[in-house]
């Protein structure tokens, strides 16, 4: 092998794919770099609930042989992708980080995993989550909570906590998360990486343990925007066995990454973080600076108003808790003590939401969708906050509970619009990541990646790394 441009674990998916295609990097060498990195860091970060390095190395070796024979099947051939442990991987349990499902052995891959496997990806581990993608970080579960690589005393965000921590720490180049109230974008924000919640129906949910049928999305989590687009290329596609899946022509989400911001109009939803749920001064300043930078790079940025954040949040909560309670009803009745207390507290309200309230929330949902659609008749994209606070400390559950709902991600679970979180700053006090969201019309992922890539290039935050 010739000299690499960087240590293998620093190579992005895009860089590694090019090097593998040019026979300058072996998939086995790439995987081993992450394995070594995980061996050194994982005891402090707890990102993995089930490491599968041997199995992944065998798959990487097979990929290497196949690439030598006939070239790569796709840019992901031989590249490692971690899986949040609510996503099925054939031959392994999907525990949902819960003692209730410790022995939940799955025989088939989730549809999205099958797509990645067909593209040649390998799977080095199942990753930590909040229990059933809903509880909070807690120490009374079968596995410890993941920790934030920027400061392991802090929460990495959730519920795709292990995915965020593993990617930010360079223990994996990419991972999958799920997002029902923001659970891809929250850890992406709090770990300083890129997380995309695609349009509802773009990525199959089949084989992903449900939290809330009409709000659940599966999304890619990576260090860079280009990698995120590359991963979504392989994840997206119609699944006739997922009733929410939509049949659409395949797209190359990397196609516009270099087109820049000129000619785009961006509506800044300031009231989310200024008046609806006031953000900390650090977060507000980072958002203002991001808006200025987007404008300097050629976008026309102006304020725009949506319904108040509290309306979106309450609608999300009524629908989420009702649908989640329907999934968990037998266990809530028969074995409530097997949940962590924080999970039980978040699940139980759904058992007391009336049918009328659920339908009212779904009726209000249609109005909220119409309001966001109206905004997209005025601007191409929206800019808004993600979290209103930097990551809380793991040893301060009261602060985690206080800050958990202080966010602007749920609106786009309610409406199903695509939204990507990218890093836009560091908190002054603790040097912890701050993120922002760019949101687009339905099926506008390529446009979102175009804007996010332009911001990423101009801002330079993707060059920053956790001080590990």
């Amino acid at each position, binding site marked *: 092998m010739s000299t690499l441009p960087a240590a293998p674990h620093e190579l992005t998916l895009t860089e590694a794919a090019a090097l593998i295609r040019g026979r300058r990097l072996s998939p086995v060498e790439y995987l081993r770099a992450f394995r070594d990195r995980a061996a050194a860091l994982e005891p402090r970060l707890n990102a993995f609930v089930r490491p599968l390095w041997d199995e992944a190395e065998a798959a990487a070796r097979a990929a290497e042989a196949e690439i030598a024979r006939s070239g790569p099947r796709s840019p992901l051939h031989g590249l490692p992708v971690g899986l949040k442990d609510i996503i099925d991987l054939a031959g392994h349990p999907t525990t949902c980080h819960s003692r209730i499902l410790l022995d939940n052995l799955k025989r088939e891959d989730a549809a999205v995993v099958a797509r990645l496997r067909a593209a040649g990806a390998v799977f080095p581990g199942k990753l930590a989550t909040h229990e059933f993608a809903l509880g909070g970080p807690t120490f009374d579960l079968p596995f410890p909570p993941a920790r934030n690589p920027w400061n392991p005393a802090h929460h990495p965000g959730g519920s795709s906590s292990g995915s965020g921590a593993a990617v930010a720490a360079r223990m994996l180049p990419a991972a999958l998360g799920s997002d029902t109230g923001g659970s891809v974008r929250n850890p992406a924000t709090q770990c300083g990486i890129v997380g995309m919640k695609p349009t509802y129906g773009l990525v199959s949910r089949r084989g992903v343990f449900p939290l809330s049928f009409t709000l659940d999305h599966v999304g890619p989590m990576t260090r860079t925007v280009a990698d995120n687009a590359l991963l979504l290329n392989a994840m997206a596609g119609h699944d006739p066995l997922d009733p929410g899946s939509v049949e659409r022509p395949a797209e190359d989400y990397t196609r516009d990454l270099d087109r820049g911001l000129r000619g785009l109009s961006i509506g800044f939803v300031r009231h989310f973080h200024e008046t609806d749920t006031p953000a900390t001064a650090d977060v507000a300043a980072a958002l203002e600076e991001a808006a200025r930078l987007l404008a300097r790079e050629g976008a026309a940025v102006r304020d725009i108003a949506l319904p108040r954040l509290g309306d979106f949040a309450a609608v999300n909560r009524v629908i989420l808790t009702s649908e989640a309670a329907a999934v968990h009803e037998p266990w*809530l009745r028969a074995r409530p003590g097997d949940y962590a*207390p924080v999970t039980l507290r978040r699940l139980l309200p759904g*058992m007391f939401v009336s049918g009328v309230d659920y339908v009212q929330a779904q*009726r209000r949902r249609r109005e909220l969708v119409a309001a966001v659609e109206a905004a997209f008749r005025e601007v191409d994209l929206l800019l808004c906050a993600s979290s209103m606070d930097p990551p809380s400390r793991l040893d301060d559950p009261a602060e985690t509970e206080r800050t958990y709902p202080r966010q602007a991600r749920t609106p786009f679970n309610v409406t199903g619009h695509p939204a990507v979180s990218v890093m836009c700053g560091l908190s002054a006090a603790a040097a912890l990541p701050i993120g922002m969201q760019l949101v687009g019309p339905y099926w506008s992922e390529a446009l979102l990646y175009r804007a996010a890539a332009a911001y990423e290039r101009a801002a330079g935050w993707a060059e920053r790394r956790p001080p590990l």
Partner: protein
Amino acid sequence: MGKDEATEREAEALARAAGLARAWEEHREAVLEAVAAARGLRTGFARPADPAAEPMPAYRVPAAQEGGR
């Protein structure tokens, strides 16, 4: 009967009606909190003013299966 006692009785009745007798016996505080949370959610968002406003997602019959009758 005091307010707290009335609240507890109401919560117990709701819990038992929901099949949560065990949760009521073993996790009473969590059930009380859940009943209050559900009540709070009820007033958390504006109800549509139009009585004919449809919920989302709209009900649609499944597409005809190929080869079906």
